[in-house]
C-alpha cells in the first residue's frame, strides 16, 4: 500500500519521501506532547484557582471603586475643572519629610562638614525615602562578602561534590525563610527598627545572591581554567584567575539586581514596622488616611524607579562591550540619548 502511496506524491524519490514521512511523524509526536503539556498545566491552574477560593469569592467592584476614590482626592481647578488634588499629596510628603529633610538639607548649604561628618547626612537628607534606601544599600553591602564566599564554595567546580552541599544547603536554608521572618527573628537582638531590617536584608542577600553566584560559576568555560593549570598555578590561583575572572562582570550585575530587590524588601519590612516609607504607608493605611497612603505610594514608586533606572543603566553599560562613558558625557549627553531612545 505504501508503495502506491509514494507514487501518488508526485513521483519524488523514495528516499526523499521517507525522510518527509519521518519528519512528519516527529512533528506529530511533538504536537501531541505540546497539547498534553498545555492540558496538564491548564488542569493544575484550575485546581490552584479553586484552592485559593477564586470561584467561591464574591467580588464587590462598586465598593472597591468607592474606596479607590479616597486614594485619589479630587478638587475643582479654577473653580470648574475637576481633577486630582495633587496639593494634598505634596502637603503630606513635605510635612512628614518623605523625600527631603529640610533641616539636614539646610546643613549642606551652611556647614558641609557637619553635613557629611557629624550628621552623616547623605541618606537622611532624603527623609524617609533615604532611610529605606539606606536599609537596602547597607544590607546588600553587609551580605555581599558572605554571599561571595558561600557562592564560590557552593560550586562543584571549586569544592568537591558532597562538601559543596554544606554551603549550598546553608544558602537554601537561608532562602527558605523570607526576609520578613528574619526581621521578626532579629527583633530580640536589635528591636524592631531599621537596624534589624538591615541585618535581615543582609542575611537574605547571602541566600539569594550566593545562589546566583553559584549558578553563574556553572556557566564558565573550561579553557581558561585549564590554561591556568598548565602555567603551574596553585589551586587558589586557578580558582581566582581561571574561574572568577570569567564572572566578575556578571557578579557585579547580579549584585546590582539584588540591590534593587533589597530596596523593595526594605519597603515591605517597613510595613511590619521597621521604619522608612513602608512604615509610613502602614500607619496611614491603619488610620484610613488613604490620600496620605497614596502620597507615600508615589514616593515609593519614585524611589524604586530611580534605583532600578540606576541599576539597569549600570548593568547595561557593564554588559555592553564598549568604553564606558565619561561622567560629563553621561550628564551632558542625557537629553540627546533620551530623544534617541524615544525615536527608535
Amino acid at each position: 500500500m505504501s508503495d502506491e502511496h509514494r507514487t501518488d506524491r508526485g513521483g519524488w524519490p523514495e528516499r526523499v519521501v521517507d525522510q518527509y514521512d519521518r519528519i512528519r511523524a516527529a512533528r506529530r509526536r511533538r504536537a501531541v506532547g505540546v497539547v498534553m503539556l498545555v492540558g496538564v498545566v491548564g488542569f493544575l491552574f484550575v485546581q490552584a484557582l479553586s484552592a485559593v477560593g477564586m470561584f467561591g469569592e464574591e467580588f464587590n467592584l462598586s465598593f472597591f471603586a468607592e474606596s479607590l476614590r479616597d486614594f485619589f482626592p479630587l478638587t475643582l481647578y479654577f473653580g470648574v475643572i475637576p481633577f486630582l488634588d495633587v496639593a494634598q499629596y505634596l502637603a503630606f510628603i513635605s510635612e512628614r519629610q518623605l523625600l527631603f529633610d529640610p533641616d539636614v538639607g539646610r546643613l549642606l548649604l551652611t556647614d558641609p562638614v557637619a553635613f557629611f561628618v557629624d550628621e552623616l547626612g547623605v541618606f537622611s537628607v532624603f527623609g524617609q525615602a533615604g532611610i529605606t534606601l539606606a536599609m537596602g544599600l547597607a544590607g546588600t553591602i553587609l551580605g555581599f562578602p558572605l554571599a561571595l564566599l558561600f557562592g564560590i564554595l557552593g560550586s562543584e567546580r571549586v569544592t568537591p561534590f558532597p562538601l559543596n552541599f554544606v554551603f549550598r544547603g546553608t544558602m537554601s536554608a537561608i532562602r527558605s525563610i523570607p526576609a520578613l521572618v528574619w526581621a521578626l527573628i532579629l527583633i530580640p537582638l536589635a528591636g524592631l527598627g531599621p537596624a534589624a531590617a538591615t541585618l535581615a536584608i543582609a542575611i537574605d542577600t547571602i541566600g539569594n545572591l550566593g545562589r546566583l553566584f553559584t549558578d553563574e560559576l556553572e556557566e564558565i568555560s573550561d579553557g581558561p581554567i585549564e590554561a591556568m593549570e598548565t602555567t603551574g598555578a596553585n589551586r587558589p590561583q586557578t580558582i581566582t584567575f581561571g574561574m572568577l575572572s570569567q564572572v566578575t562582570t556578571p557578579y557585579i550585575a547580579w549584585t546590582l539586581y539584588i540591590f534593587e530587590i533589597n530596596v523593595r524588601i526594605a519597603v515591605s519590612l517597613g510595613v511590619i514596622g521597621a521604619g522608612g516609607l513602608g512604615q509610613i504607608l502602614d500607619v496611614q493605611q491603619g488610620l484610613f488616611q488613604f490620600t496620605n497612603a497614596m502620597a507615600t505610594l508615589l514616593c515609593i514608586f519614585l524611589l524604586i524607579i530611580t534605583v532600578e533606572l540606576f541599576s539597569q543603566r549600570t548593568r547595561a553599560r557593564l554588559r555592553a562591550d564598549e568604553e564606558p562613558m565619561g561622567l560629563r558625557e553621561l550628564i551632558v549627553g542625557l537629553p540627546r540619548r533620551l530623544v534617541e531612545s524615544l525615536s527608535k
Partner: protein
Amino acid sequence: MSRLIADGLTKEFGDTVALEDVSFEIPDGEFVVVLGVSGSGKSTLLRCLNGLTEPTSGAVRLDGESVTEPREDVAMIFQQHNIIDNMSAFSNALTGALHRSRYVESVLQLHASEEKYRALDALDTVGLLEEAQQKARRMSGGQQQRVGIARALVQRPNVLLADEPVASLDPGSAQQVMRYLRTAASDRDLTALISLHQVNLARKFGQRFIGLRDGRKVFDGYREEFTMDVIDEIYGDVDTEGMFARTDGDGGADKGRTRPSSDRSATGERTPAVGASEGADP
C-alpha cells in the same frame, strides 16, 4: 632545553581510540610540527604530553621524569587562546608567573618588578609591547593568540606545546603568529611541538614533522623526507590542494635555524606547491 619522550601513548575514550601506540623522541631544542586532519588525535596527543589528559597506557617522559599532571616547565598554547578576556594583555602575560608567586602577591599584582619586566619583554617578543594595557577582549584574534604565547614565555618553560594555535585565524595572522612562535622558540632554545592542519604553514615553519592519521603515527621525519607522498599518506583522500594557497608572508622566522638541506626536497621528489617551498628560503 629538554628531551621529550612519548612512549607507546594510547588513549581511548569509551570505544573510540583517539591515540594508538604513538612513540617518538624529541631532542633538545627541536621545532616539531604535528600534522593531521581533524580527529586524527593531534589534540589528544598534546594534552597527554603536558598531563592535561591521562593516557590509557604508555607514558610521557621529560628528561627522564614522567609527566602525569600539568607542570610549570611545560607551557601550552591553545587553539582558543584561553587568555582571560577581562584582563589586560600585561596582566594576562603575568599569569604565566603564577607558579613563582604567592596568592596575595599574584591577586594584587605585587610581583617583583623583575617579573613585570619579564612579562613586558615577552609581550615585546610577540610585538605587543605598545598594546600592553589593552583589554584582551578588545584585541583581534591574532593579537589574543600572541598574548597566549607571551603568557607561555613568561612561564619560562623548557617545552612549548601549541595545539592548533592558528586554526581560527585568517591566513595573514596565522603566519604572523607562527613566525612569533618560531622566533620565540629559537631565541629561548625551547623544545617546541606545534600541531597544525595547514600543510603550507607546516612546511614553512617546521623543522621536523610528525604525521598522525586515525590516532596512529604515520610519519616522523625531517624536512627533506616530508614529500607529497607523505602528505597524501597523512591526509588520505582529503584534497590538500586548498592547503597550499599562496601565502603573502616572507617566512623570515626560519632565518638562522633552517637546516642547510631545507630545499633539497625541491630537487627530485614531488614537492608541495609554490607557497610552501618558496617560504622556506626567504
